[in-house]
């Protein structure tokens, strides 16, 4: 009897492994949650893109639910998602931009050409804020609630469907 059970063990082991491999097919190994989920927005002290004299810090994001979008002039996908961001701004969502690894000139050019849905843009030429946010590829978007806690993270391009299906509901949830 024990022998028969032992002989079945390899099959059982294989089936378990097979089940996991099957589950693996529907998982995207690249998609992962931000390490900053449910944590405070990182502290920073940077100037804004619009005004080189004005310094802002994390308190900028408190008081209202904010969508922080990390973009750059060099990033083609950021251009493609601008319509969606403008749409969100039209719907009354507060947007703050982080101009990541750009020069002031390039950043302003970008906004002039594609529109500016942002209330204000944090100028991050070195990418230090981006680094603290764990950004590894623009565009990335963070939803920050009233108390400055990061509640949702969207890596990459925001499609029109995403606006309706995920972003707006999340914004509403945390309002």
């Amino acid at each position, binding site marked *: 009897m024990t022998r028969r059970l032992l002989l079945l063990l390899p099959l059982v082991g*294989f089936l378990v*492994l*097979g089940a996991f*491999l099957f589950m693996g097919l529907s*998982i995207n*190994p690249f998609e*992962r*949650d931000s390490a900053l989920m449910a944590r405070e927005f990182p502290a920073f002290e940077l100037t804004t893109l619009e005004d080189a004299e004005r310094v802002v810090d994390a308190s900028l994001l408190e008081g209202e639910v904010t969508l922080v979008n990390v973009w750059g002039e060099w990033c083609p996908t950021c251009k493609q998602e601008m319509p969606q961001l403008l749409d969100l701004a039209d719907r009354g969502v507060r947007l703050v931009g982080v101009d990541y690894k750009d020069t002031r000139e390039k950043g302003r050019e970008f906004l002039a050409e594609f529109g500016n849905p942002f209330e204000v843009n944090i100028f991050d030429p070195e990418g230090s804020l981006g680094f603290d946010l764990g950004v590894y590829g623009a565009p990335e978007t963070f939803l920050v609630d009233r108390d400055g806690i990061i509640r949702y993270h969207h890596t990459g391009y925001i499609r029109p469907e995403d606006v309706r299906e995920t972003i707006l509901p999340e914004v509403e949830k945390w309002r």
Partner: protein
Amino acid sequence: MQTLMIPEIGHYALIIALLMALVQGVMPLAGAATRRPLWMAYARPMATGQFLFLAIAYACLTASYLLDDFSVANVANNSNSMLPWYYKASAVWGNHEGSVLLWSLILAAWGFAVSRFSRELPRDMLARVMGVMGLVSLGFLAFVLITSNPFERLLPNVPQDGADLNPLLQDFGLIVHPPMLYMGYVGFSVVFAFAIAALLGGRLDAAWTRWARPWTNIAWAFLTVGIALGSWWAYYELGWGGWWFWDPVENASLLPWLAGTALIHSLAVTEKRGAFKSWTVLLAISTFSLSLMGTFLVRSGVLTSVHAFANDPSRGLFILVLLGITVGLSLLLFALRAPRVSHQVGFSWLSRDALLLINNILLVIMTVTVLLGTVYPLLLDALNLGKISVGPPYFNALFVPLTVILCLFMGLGPLSRWKHTPARDLFQRSWHAGLAALVIGAVAPLLYRGEWNLKVSLGVVIALWIVLPMARDLWVKSRHSAGRVAGLRRLSLAYWGMILGHLGIAVTIIGVTVVSNYAIERNVRMGVGDSVEVAGYTFTMTELANRRGPNYLADAAEIEVQRGDSRRSFTMTPEKRLYIARGMPMTQVALRPGLFRDLYVAMGEDLEDGSWAMRIQHKPFVRWLWLGALLMAAGGVLAVADRRYRRTVTARDPERAAAVEPREATA
């Protein structure tokens, strides 16, 4: 421009091959089950036909590449008119569709070979073996035709030129590594088929192992060479001097290798002693299953890897189903048909049987460890426990100690006798070697670099522990009244096979130990006229220039290298290439190989002030890694060489057979 019919011919040939595989799969198995010789007789001709038509299909695809037929999607995606012809021919397997076609071709080739070289197999056994192989072929050909057809056309909008082969693949490594690897992976299907045939026929005596051994050893040798070539290729191609990264795709090739190593030893025990019969069957099934799983992991997108082919979950599902059916049914058959009561073969603690049991257990643990580490991130992710990474630190931490333990027993194995070795004998045969190994190992790092190093000592000790007892044993066994040479010639090929195989491991261990601990790497800034000293060599940049190749532009640096105070010098020319078709930049490393050290120079970044950031490396003993693998492979083949000789001789010449028989005792 006239559209050629060649791809269509290839496509039809593929379909015919599939039909033949179907017949080859079904008829012989049904014939063996119902004792119909006529049905069983389908096996050989179908195997021949399948191979023939697959060869035609493959030739058609290759022809499409060589003729720059960009109406074939596969050619357009992976080739280019400026590509040298030998890379066009290799580009056939440098992509998913072509490589699965190659896999199928090689499977058919092994099947054909088995049908040709198995005259002495009982008819029903051969029928079952061929039937199983036919079914596996069927699965793969179905996969090719349904999900990965290389003959798809881009009519009517034929592109002007192709997208070019990835520059990283435009290298000698592409010409040799995949075919060798596939010969190994697919070769294990033979022993798999034998095991299933044995289960189906209820004939689980040791006979099937005798027939299966040569096929298994040869497949294992191919896989060994294939893996070594992959490591060597990555080393000189990727620009960072590494030779193993525990990447999922690399692990996918190591898993069947580890199981295969256990298998070749287990087959020996079962053949000689009739022990571990069920275990050997299970191993045979598992080794090929790991080959199949490797295919799945590499092509399904389930794991991230730099080497991965097209990551396509829909193809992944097909392979998983194929895997599920093949492995699931095999293991079920095993559970149902493996003998419930095994004839207990007796042996004692210090017997070769026991030592090989330990060998098998350790190798299986190593296999499980590598498998666990490879799929663990997936496991956790599927259970919603987050995303982690498992990389070289984990694998090295576990694999190295396990290897050390394995080597400890490897020293004793060759000295032991079947069934029982008196402890006294074993001790007497090994204590000199053991002592010498310890002393030399302790002293080695001091002699080599003037400083003691525990890891290096350990590596040297275990390598010598493998070699020295065998050397002594060889010395003793080759004693002969007619002189040493006569004595050596009297020894069986199987014995030489074992010596070479184990020597190979020792050589690889030395290579790994030395290069891991003593490699030197320096990143320096160099402009024309600058000199740098690394490991006693002086590197001087004498020129920076622009060059043009057949399909690329390059920045090249001429580096003159001098050793110590020697007057003689040689030049190394690393390049930074830009491949025109894909616009892809690539580092071409300058390598100066040597038996005891490699010199390695790569261009890093253009620092825009007339100088470049260069990486210079000194890699001692790195070649030993791959030389060891070659020795292992040679050993594997030798170990079954005399067996085949004996078999053929027995058939033709009974007198000579009698003279050859005494060799049996020494094996």
